[in-house]
């Protein structure tokens, strides 16, 4: 059964006195439980608006969202709260999405307490489990976000999401601000979480190689619509749409660039 079904979703921003900005113009897809979807496209193509609409941060102006068989806009207050818990988001700027005045311990305790995920006495043990899950040493617990690295902050963000035992994580450019070696570690973490916990992942990225590495399926977004969707390897190896080809050609891929350079030297 599909976990999330999106049908003809529109997101329109209206400003008085100005023409409406139609950021998402009719997007439909469905995501199976445990599957991973990559959404690629340039900034301004509507991918972040789409993500915000999916988690309910931005109301959709038209279209339906169905999560586990139930229409999201017809959920009761409690039902919607459960939905918000089941669908979590990780942002690009990890350091910026953590409270600078709270230690890692306070951040993780807060989310477990507010959402009543564990009785107070069980919270410290759960925090240790979460740190273990994202591969952080317990020595970071009393650090503030600025005292740990960007990669560690991103792991804390993942731990904070996982505290709510979500079924879907939407990661919006989770590694684009990180060094390559750290990037590799976070991507491996995403993959292992998906496999170990059976999570579904929507990975938003402009890095096609990252998406190809992590995701089963990919959707190429341009100007508010999906211009091409399919199995990640198919779409990225044999792109059909001209825009997908443009994106692929813009990727500075080490292997490809070296090959053509070596060929030119011969």
């Amino acid at each position: 059964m599909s976990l999330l079904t999106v049908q003809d979703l529109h997101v329109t921003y209206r400003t008085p006195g100005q023409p409406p900005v139609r950021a998402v113009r009719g997007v439909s897809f469905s995501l199976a439980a445990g599957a991973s979807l990559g959404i690629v496209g340039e900034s301004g193509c509507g991918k972040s608006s789409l993500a915000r609409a999916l988690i309910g941060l931005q109301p959709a102006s038209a279209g339906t969202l169905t999560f586990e068989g139930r229409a999201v806009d017809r959920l009761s207050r409690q039902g919607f709260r459960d939905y918000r818990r089941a669908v979590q988001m990780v942002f690009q700027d990890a350091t910026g999405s953590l409270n600078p005045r709270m230690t890692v311990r306070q951040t993780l305790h807060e989310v477990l307490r507010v959402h009543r995920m564990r009785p107070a006495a069980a919270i410290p043990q759960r925090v240790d489990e979460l740190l273990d899950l994202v591969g952080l040493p317990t020595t970071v617990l009393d650090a503030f976000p600025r005292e740990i690295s960007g990669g560690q902050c991103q792991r804390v963000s993942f731990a904070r999401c996982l505290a709510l035992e979500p079924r879907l994580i939407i990661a919006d450019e989770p590694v684009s601000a990180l060094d390559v070696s750290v990037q590799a570690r976070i991507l491996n973490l995403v993959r292992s979480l998906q496999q170990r916990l059976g999570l579904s992942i929507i990975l938003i990225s402009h890095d096609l190689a990252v998406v190809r590495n992590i995701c089963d399926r990919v959707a190429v977004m341009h100007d508010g619509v999906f211009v091409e969707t399919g199995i990640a390897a198919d779409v990225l190896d044999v792109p059909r749409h001209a825009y997908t080809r443009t994106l692929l050609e813009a990727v500075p891929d080490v292997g490809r660039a070296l090959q053509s350079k070596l060929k030119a030297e011969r």
Partner: protein
Amino acid sequence: MPHPLLQVDHLSVTFRRDGMLTTPVRDVSLTVQAGERVAVVGESGCGKSLTALSLTRLSPTDRARLQGRVLFDGTDTLALSPDALTRVRGRGIAYVFQDPSASLNPVMRVQDQIAECLPDLPRAAHRDACVELLTRTGLPDPARAARAFPCELSGGQQQRVMLAMALAARPKLLVADEPTTALDVTTQQQVLDLIDTLADADGMAVLLITHNLGLVAGRMTRVYVMYAGQVVESGAVTDVLSNPRHPYTRGLLAAVPMLDAPRNAPLQDIPGTVPSPDAWPAGCAFAPRCAQADARCHAEQPPETDDADSHRSRCWHTQPCHS
């Protein structure tokens, strides 16, 4: 061999903080020929940007001590008077930084900012010169962009404005410090194509600082790999990337997701992190993160290979045996 445009000899940058000496840039030597495309790669905290800033003493000089020589066009910028240095900055070596929105003055119109880079021109000529520069950078509607405030432009457009400013005084060397990290792949391609075109037209050399090996592979001719304040490997891009000698270079390459890699093959990461400058290891700086490290690696710093080969590295395991 022509006289290199830029020759950095044994550059070290030392800071004194709380009575402690730290040396984030250690004994860095590099050259850039006129018109050449050279890259410096490495993780954050390896001293790439500080090296670039030190070329024109833009590093915080009140606290930093610069040692070594930076010969630019035959003169040592580290020994220049502040007045003479001002003539090298912008006219000789110009910079483009990572975050254009932070580099531009938010409350000044674009044309006024560019005009500041044109002190030799009469005021009346500023506007036309500014529009001409913006036209060269391929901005659509340059006349409108000239009157705009930075916040009215997109990231890619702002970076073009930064380029226009950098090119205003026709520098011989453009130092581009992660110029496209904040941009989309397609915008990144456009901005780098632009840098290439403009550099070709003016015979300008480019020193690109990046952590994106894809950019290095596709666009540059030579590369310096920096780790913990040192150059650990250098040479022609094709040599270094297709036949990397230093384990750090190999690690960086393995960590990059590639388009033709099999799906779900875990990416190789480099365990651990770059040590902080106040705790550089005694031996090879990379030894704590290196799978090949042995007792000698931890105890002694490896020298740079010193053969006629232009592909150099700093690793005990690629040294010829002397003993």
